[in-house]
C-alpha cells in the first residue's frame, strides 16, 4: 500500500491539518516509509484473536448520575484564545 499525493492531501484534510504543496513530497515519502515498515504485521496469523482495546484491569465503573464538578465558567474560559463574555468565538459559519 503506497499513498499517492491525492491521498496524502485527503488525510491532511480529514485531520484538519493544513499542508503546503512544498510539504507534500517529503510527507508522502515519510508516511510511505512508515507504512512499508508496518506491512510486516500482515504475516501474523490473527484468525480468531480478539482485539485488545485496553489492558482490562479496570472494569468501567457506574456512579450516581449527579453533578460532581462545575460552577467554574471563568476557569473554563480562562484559556480561550478569543472569548467574548461567557462565550467562545468562531468565524461566522452561517451565511
Amino acid at each position, binding site marked *: 500500500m503506497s499513498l499517492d499525493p491525492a491521498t496524502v492531501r485527503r488525510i491532511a484534510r480529514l485531520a*484538519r491539518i493544513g499542508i503546503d504543496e512544498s510539504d507534500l513530497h517529503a510527507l508522502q515519502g515519510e508516511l510511505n516509509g512508515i507504512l512499508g515498515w508496518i506491512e510486516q504485521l500482515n504475516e501474523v496469523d490473527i484468525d480468531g484473536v480478539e*482485539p485488545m482495546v485496553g489492558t482490562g484491569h479496570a472494569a468501567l*465503573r457506574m456512579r450516581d448520575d449527579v453533578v460532581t464538578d462545575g460552577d467554574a465558567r471563568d476557569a473554563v474560559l*480562562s484559556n480561550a484564545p478569543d472569548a467574548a463574555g461567557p462565550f467562545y468565538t468562531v468565524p461566522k459559519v452561517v451565511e
Partner: protein
Amino acid sequence: MMLTELTIAAAQDGLRRRDFSAVELVGAHIAAIERLNGRLNAFITVTADQAMDAARRADDVLAKGEAAPLTGIPLGIKDLFCTDGVRTTAASRMLENFVPPYESTVTANLLRDGAVFAGKTNLDEFAMGSANINSAFGAVENPWKREGEADTVLVPGGSSGGSAAAVAASLVMGATGTDTGGSIRQPASYCGIAGIKPTYGRCSRWGTIAFASSLDQAGPMARTVEDCAILLQSMAGFDLRDSTSVDCPVPDYRAACGRDLKGMKVGIPAEYRVAGMPAEIEAAWNKGIAWLRDAGCEIVEVSLPYTKYGLATYYIVAPAECSSNLARYDGVRFGRRVPAASLDEQYEATRRAGFGAEVRRRIMMGTYVLSAGYYDAYYLRAQKVRNLIRRDFERAFQQVDVLLTPTAPSPAFAQGEKMDDPVQMYLNDVFTVPASMAGVPAMSVPAGLSANGLPLGLQIIGRSFDEEAVLAAASAIERAASFTHRPALRAEVV
C-alpha cells in the same frame, strides 16, 4: 558531600535531623538550575520563587515535627502534567500560553506529600519522540559526554528527556516522567539514572496531557531505585477521575527494594537478542544475568515470539489514539489560534502552525489507519497483534517472576544522528515498547558504561501490579553494578 549529591532517602533523614534546612536544600538546586539550565535546556519553566516559598513553608512544618514523606524535596515535573496556575506547554507551540486552572492527580499527590516543584521539564512535543529533539522550546542536552568528545552534544533520550537530564545533572533530586512506549525508561538509560513505568492503571492519568490513552502511564525518575520507590509511593493510587485507574492497594515500595531474591525466577527472552545488537549491550546484559544469579535468582530462558511485532504494532495503535486525542486542539476553547475566514480554514491554519513536524506526521498516520476502508487492515489488525503480544507476557509470567533485557539498543547518540528517517528513530524503543503494549510494569536501572564512557541501562519487566518484584530485582542489579559514575555536566562541578 554537597546537598545536590544527596539521594532523596538521605535528604529526608537530613531534613528531619535539621542537618540542613529545606531552604538550603531547595536553594542549592535552584542555584544549580540557574548555572546549568541555559546550557542543558532541561526546564521549559523554572518556578524558583514558588519553590523557595514552598521551602520556607517546609521548614515551618519540619520545625513542628510534622514532616510528610517528601517535605522539602525539590522535584522536576515533566511539562505534560497540568499544574494549577503554572504554564503547561507539552513542549508545543499549541500550548505555549496554556495555564491550567487545575492540578493533575499525580502532581497533587506529590504536593500532598510535601514535595517542592522546581519547575516544568522539557520533553518531546506531546511526548512524541525518543531524543528530545522535537520540542518547540529547543532540544535538551544530555549532561554526559563521550570520552574525549567534550564538544559533541548527545541527546538525553525521550520523551522525558528534560526530566532525565535534570536528575542526572543534579538540578533536582527526582522528577516525574510519562511513558507511552519507553519515554521514562529509554531516557533513564541514556542519562545513567533509574526510572520506572508502573503498571497501566497504577498512576492516575487525570490532568496529564494525553498522547495515547491505552498506553500512557506516569512514573518517577531518580538517581537510585529506592528514590524511585519513594516517589512512586506518593504518585500511585486509585483515582475516581480516571476510568482506567485500578482500585488496588499500593504496597510499601521502599521495603521491596531490600527484598531477598533467593528463589526468584528471572526470564531471559530469546527474541531480545536481536540481530546486530552491539557487543557492549550484550555484554552488559550478560553481566546483569550473572549478578541476578549471584543474588540467588534462577535464570530461565523464555520465549516472547510476538515481541518482534511490538514496534510496528505500536506505530499503528499510538498514532491512532494520538490523532483522536489531539483533535481537541481546535483553536477555539484553549491553546493557539491562527485566525482565518472560515472555521475549517481556521482549524487547518491553527493545527499547521501549532503542531511540529513529528506530531503532524503521527496525527496523519493515525487518521489514515482509522479512516474508512483502512481501519480493519491496520488498526483492527494491530489491536489483535497487541493481544498476542500480551499473551506472550502472560505465558512467560507463568514460568518466571520478572524478565531481564537491555533497555535500549545503544547508548545515547549525538544530536543530528538518526534524524533523517522516522523509522530509524522509532527503533530506539524496540526493547521498551512490548511491555507498554502489554501494560506491565518495567524499570531501567544503570548497569555500566559503554566503551566510550556512556551509561547503559538494563530493563526489568514484571507482572501486572507487581512493581515490588521489579524494584527488588532492579535494586539487586544496582547494588551489584555499584554504578557511581556521574556525568561531565552536573551541579557539583559546573
